[in-house]
């Protein structure tokens, strides 16, 4: 039986190996960690600013902050959901607690997220936004976001081996979430009723809080943040319990 510290230890080591090997996979290597989000920013920026003629003040950083958080979520959940299935060969040969597989993906993407977050901060300064004391709340937002991402990834990874069809449903959900999370629009400008509905989506809340801090220099709304964190924790606990329950069943699925 792997203890919790051992699980984390192995996950961290696998994540570091994965990061190292990713750099060796392409010609541009580590540069892709910055280029990939910038390219997706360019696509949406052109689409909204020039084709649809939308766009608020500081639209580039507004959009980028949404994209950066959304990408952390989407990439981790998509890859994490397949991680236990992908570890099938390894789990036949050595007992590993299966949470190690999604956790590795979470850690890899957390590292990349921090890098793009730093890039976002630089972009904010370049657009004339001043650093504020509210930046001190960023670690809290980071923890909260990681809990959400880890919770969703664990839950999806736990059920995917049993229900392969879930892969199709998940890709639609992840796609839908880019529209339901306020990546392109400001949640606080919606009608009160719509706001209430959308705030049940922790990703929307977290993107909003990141924008409050980085774009407006204001402290996050603790009530909203608490609600998002609670939802994330519930998902994380359910995901963990599922993996724990099925830990020795995954190796038998062929």
């Amino acid at each position: 039986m792997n203890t919790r510290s051992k699980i984390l230890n192995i996950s961290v080591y696998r994540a570091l190996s994965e990061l190292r090997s990713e750099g060796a996979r392409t010609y541009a290597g580590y540069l892709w960690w910055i280029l990939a989000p910038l390219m997706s920013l360019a696509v949406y920026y052109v689409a909204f600013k020039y084709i649809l003629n939308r766009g608020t003040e500081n639209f580039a950083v507004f959009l980028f902050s949404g994209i950066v958080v959304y990408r952390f979520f989407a990439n981790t959940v998509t890859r994490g959901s397949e991680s236990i299935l992908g570890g099938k060969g390894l789990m036949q040969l050595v007992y590993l607690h299966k949470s190690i597989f999604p956790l590795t993906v979470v850690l890899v993407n957390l590292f990349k997220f921090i890098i793009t977050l730093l890039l976002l901060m630089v972009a904010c300064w370049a657009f004339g936004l001043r650093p504020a004391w509210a930046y001190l709340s960023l670690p809290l937002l980071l923890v909260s976001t990681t809990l959400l991402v880890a919770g969703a990834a664990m839950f999806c990874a736990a059920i995917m081996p049993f229900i392969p069809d879930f892969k199709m449903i998940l890709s639609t959900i992840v796609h839908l979430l880019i529209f339901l999370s306020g990546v392109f629009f400001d949640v606080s400008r919606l009608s009160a009723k719509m706001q209430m509905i959308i705030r049940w989506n922790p990703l929307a809340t977290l993107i909003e809080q990141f924008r409050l801090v980085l774009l407006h220099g204001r402290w996050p709304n603790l009530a909203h943040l608490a609600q998002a964190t609670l939802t994330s924790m519930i998902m994380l606990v359910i995901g963990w319990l599922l993996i724990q329950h099925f830990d020795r069943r995954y190796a038998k699925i062929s």
Partner: protein
Amino acid sequence: MEEIVFDIRNMGVSYRKASSLPWKVNKFWALHDVSFKVRRGETIGIIGRNGAGKSTLLKVMADIIRPDQGTVDRADVTVTLQSISAGFDKRLTGRQNIFLNGILLGMSHKDVTKRLDNIIELAGIGTFIDEPTKTYSSGMLSRLGFAIAYYVETDVILIDETLAVGDEAFKKKASEMIKKKIQSHYTVILVTHSLELVGELCDRIIQIENGCSLPELPLNESLERYKNTCLTNN
């Protein structure tokens, strides 16, 4: 009275067969009724024809899967399956993969550092150790895998000989290293088709036939019985 490491009683493992609908459960019993005990320091040979359930048995002993019936009592021991290479990341160098695999097999970073030179020497792949493992031949990969697993500190070693590959010279070296371990205090479970090896190395033999363990006989009679079952069924 020596300590009992494994006490397996009427153990069975079932797999779900692929079915068209999720609520239609088709069970397939890979193991029906396996019973035997293993004492510390013993070397046990497990023989049986292809598909008899030997690999499934090793997975249960390594605690990779749980039995669906019967019981498996295990003393507080660490169990390692010898010869693994599935944890390799092909884009990392051999040296980096030694650390990655060592940690997956339960070693600490410090343990791996301490044994690094020994592992590299046993693998015997020269300067390739600092090249990405995607440049390795399959023989080199299995040598490296063997070398890492060999230096894992463990109480019980499970060896699935059918997995062993490599050229003759390495096979000889590997079986000599294994013999050394067998002669020391380790508890070894050896799955093999080579009756010679079993006769030479093992204290006891467990024969698995269609998912059931046959009643245990003394070593020589056991070998005779296995030869006979193979003859009558072919």
